[in-house]
């Protein structure tokens, strides 16, 4: 019993660290993508935006400040090994407490409100917040926790369409194009465009969200889906929306697509946008409570 409590404390500490770390230090793959975008951009306002972003990331590093003021809604992705000695009910408790502690101790702006009264519910925690997604892994005794604080500017630019099978892949591409042009500068482009296809309405959006939490530069393992990612990337960057919607060559840093098999009469497509400040941070927790933080995952 004492062992389990210690592990719960280790997960809570990890969550508290991950939340703040994700907000302050954006991953290298993203820094590289922003740097490349700044070199490729030719529009004057677009270059101004990208140069400012590069400067901002450096200032967050040297000043130890948050990259963006929007501390987001706390989202975690957990991969739990079947042999991990802490039950998911307690893992959730640890993530909840870790999020709350980080918010109080830093302090971080608290964004969480009751969805009807709009009253603040506490320190970035509330009813069903943080939001935690679970995956259970056989023949393993570890835990991976990825923290993805999600800003509202980009989350507000989420779109779902139940295309029909006759719309085909062309219908999927058209919906993604229309969504990103319609979003314009609001989601802080250039960012990661997450696309979820197949499954059901809710699962397509879940997949789109999962897609934005992948590192830039990763491709879907299914070559057909990877090809769709590449094609969408070219299409979106041909729209001219540009950095912060002020016009330019770079509209998306990456397009990630996740898919699931679906019903023969369904063709759902979901778009979830992630801003250029695509915050994420991961911890690997071993069965004996040793935490290994991972910048790349």
């Amino acid at each position: 019993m004492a062992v389990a409590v210690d592990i719960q404390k280790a997960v809570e500490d990890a969550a508290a660290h991950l939340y703040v770390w994700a907000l302050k230090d954006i991953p290298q793959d993203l820094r590289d993508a922003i740097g490349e975008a700044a070199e490729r951009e030719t529009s004057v306002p677009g270059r101004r935006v990208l140069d400012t972003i590069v400067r901002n990331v450096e200032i967050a590093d040297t000043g130890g400040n948050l990259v963006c003021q929007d501390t987001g809604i706390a989202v975690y992705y957990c991969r739990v090994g079947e042999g991990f000695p802490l039950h998911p009910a307690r893992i959730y408790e640890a993530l909840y407490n870790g999020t709350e502690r980080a918010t109080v101790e830093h302090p971080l702006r608290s964004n969480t409100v009751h969805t009807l009264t709009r009253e603040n519910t506490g320190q970035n925690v509330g009813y069903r917040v943080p939001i935690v997604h679970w995956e259970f892994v056989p023949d393993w005794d570890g835990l991976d926790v990825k923290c993805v604080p999600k800003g509202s500017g980009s989350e507000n630019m989420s779109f779902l369409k139940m295309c029909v099978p006759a719309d085909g892949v062309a219908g999927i591409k058209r919906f993604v194009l229309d969504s990103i042009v319609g979003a314009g500068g609001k989601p802080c482009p250039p960012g990661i465009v997450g696309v979820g296809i197949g499954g059901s309405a809710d699962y397509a959006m879940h997949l789109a969200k999962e897609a934005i939490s992948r590192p830039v530069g990763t491709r879907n393992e299914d070559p057909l889906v990877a090809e769709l990612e590449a094609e969408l990337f070219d299409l979106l960057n041909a729209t001219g929306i540009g950095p912060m919607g002020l016009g330019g060559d770079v509209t998306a840093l990456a397009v990630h697509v996740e898919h699931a098999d679906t019903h023969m009469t369904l063709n759902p497509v979901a778009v979830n946008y992630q801003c250029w400040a695509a915050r994420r941070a991961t911890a690997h927790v071993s069965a004996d409570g040793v935490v290994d933080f991972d910048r790349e995952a």
Partner: protein
Amino acid sequence: MADVRMTFPTTEEAIRELRAGDSVTVDGHIIGIRDRTQIRIFDQGQEPPMDLKGAFLLHTAPGVRKLGEGRYEKVCIGTTTSARMVRFTEPLGERYGVRAICGKGGLPDEAIEPMRRLGMVYFAIVGGAAALETTQIEEIEEVAWEELMPECLWKFRVKDFGPLTVAIDSHGNSLYHDVQAEAKKRLEDLYARL
């Protein structure tokens, strides 16, 4: 596309000199405002306890640390999406003499005509670049309506605030309008490639 340095509060004359695409850096005083602040002013009819004549309004809900009664220090101050608050553009200019609205993501086309008629501009800031923005805010000088935390009415003293892009000017030009019009044209060709 000029590089302009301005001090706020300012005059209609100075605002009329700005053109869409110009780069602007700001010194002086700016006012932080957000959804709930403007709902209180315009929907609930409460007069703002700060003078907004000639003002620069920033769409923000800052992260702050409380020092004492009515006193706060900055932690992380950035900018929110403006489009949600577009309906307040005209009354802000007409009733209170606001000269500039600054936010991220732009204002829809319905802001173009009141900005032209009243002599106002929209400044685009780089959304998410809060670490930089925080260093350009020297001090939080005043806070009103603290019960709306963090959507209070804030008065900041700033230095070298920017770079901002004039995205909607007072002559009927909007970069957002132009970018959308161009994108709609391009979409026709892109659809043909699907």
